[in-house]
């Protein structure tokens, strides 16, 4: 489903996001990049309707995204932390978010098991989150986000807490899941190699207050080395700029 971000900005005590506009076609895998503290997470939360923008608007399939407990969007979110309920098994954690979709207990169970299998957790359905590794918990969180068959899947540095090896494996998995399910994904990361490895479109934000510094197609995924170098240069420039002008 098409996502449009039109002139979105956010102020806390200082302006964090100046104005950001871009659009995402259905089935795209967008990576949001930028220096630390440039408002990537905030932007993702605005897109997800978790917090309101100070200005501008976000539309999903033409309908404005507003912050409201009774919203009817199907947006899956994978947070930096897994945010699983420790007192529910992995299966019940996934099954829980299926209740608003009106599925019966048997159907919830079947769907939960299907998506746990998809993320490679077959055989661990009855485990409690505290009994599995951090990587497996994050996989379960991804299964939960996918299980509602979201129109939009938002991922906020989901592998930040993982070690390098697990990170590599999970990037590969997410890329595979994206190919198999065809979901529209917006993925926040500060790791350039990660973005270049998995995104079809890369959006680089500038230092705070942020704007879009560059939007790059990465569909054919050739010349990765050069692209990574370019992006690294950009991010170093932005970091330098941020240090020159501390928030007043």
């Amino acid at each position: 489903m098409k996502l449009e971000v039109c002139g979105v900005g956010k102020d806390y005590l200082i302006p964090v996001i100046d104005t950001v506009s871009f659009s995402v076609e259905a089935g795209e895998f967008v990576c949001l990049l930028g220096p630390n503290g440039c408002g990537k997470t905030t932007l993702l939360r605005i897109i997800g309707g978790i917090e309101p923008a100070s200005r501008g608007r976000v539309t999903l399939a033409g309908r404005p995204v507003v912050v409201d407990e009774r919203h009817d969007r199907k947006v899956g979110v994978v947070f930096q932390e897994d945010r699983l309920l420790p007192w529910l098994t992995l299966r019940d954690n996934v099954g829980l978010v299926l209740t608003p979709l009106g599925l019966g207990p048997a159907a919830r169970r079947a769907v939960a098991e299907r998506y746990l299998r998809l993320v490679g957790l077959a055989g661990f359905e009855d485990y409690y989150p505290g009994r599995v590794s951090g990587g497996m918990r994050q996989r379960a969180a991804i299964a939960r986000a996918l299980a509602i068959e979201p129109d939009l899947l938002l991922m906020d540095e989901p592998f930040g807490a993982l070690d390098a090896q697990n990170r590599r494996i999970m990037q590969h998995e997410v890329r595979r899941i994206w190919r198999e399910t065809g979901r529209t994904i917006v993925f926040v990361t500060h790791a350039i190699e990660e973005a270049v490895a998995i995104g079809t479109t890369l959006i680089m934000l500038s230092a705070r207050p942020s704007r879009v510094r560059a939007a790059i197609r990465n569909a054919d995924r050739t010349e990765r080395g050069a692209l990574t170098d370019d992006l690294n240069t950009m991010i170093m420039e932005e970091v330098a700029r941020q240090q020159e002008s501390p928030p007043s």
Partner: protein
Amino acid sequence: MRIWVARLHLPTLAVAAVLVAVWSALSWRYGAYVLPPPLSVLRGLVEVVVSGDIWRHAGASLGRIVVGFGGAVVVAVLLGLLVFLSRVAGGVVRDVLTVLNSTSVFVWIVISIIWFGLSNWAPIFTTFMITLPVVASNIVEGVASVDRRLLEMGDVYRLSGRRKFAAIVVPSTLPYLVAGMKVGFGLALKVSVVAEIFGVTSGIGYVMNYSREVLATQMVFVWALVMIAVMTLTDTLLFDSLSRRLMRWR
């Protein structure tokens, strides 16, 4: 071998043996009215078990506790719900609990005698008023400590308010409830026994005071032991197994 030593608390038993020896010596020195010898206490204990007095009085005390403390738990849970639903109500509840927490047992005993006279309701009411702030403070703290990030996850996935309450708030608060109940029950036993000194004709507190009046000091010791036994048993049998069952996922 080592496990058995730990199970039996052998060092504790050794200390207990020394204390009993000292107790015997002191009893011999000061006389049975001040400090009855261990053997007469043991004999008294056998006597109350055989005669069935132990069940009558411990049962009466426990019955009052179940009503008074049970009522406190029910009201505390309702207060927890109120705190979850309304921020304003939460502030009021917290302030009221602070006041109740700093009210002496004796205040409630005197007031309950004025209000309820010499009846069962006096110790019940006292137990209720003393345990309510303890259990409720725990629940309120539990509700306040519910992870906001989990509730936000619930909002993202469109869980209804009722389901968020059942799936997120209640399980987060349960450990606090059990901890509060554990402390509250111990307090209930101690408090209701004191309240039983006034105006009722059964219960551990009553029979202890009665024993003192008829100069049967060894029976005061016997009932003190019964009280300790009731406390220890409920703690291990009821609350430990309850918290283990609730916290299976840990």
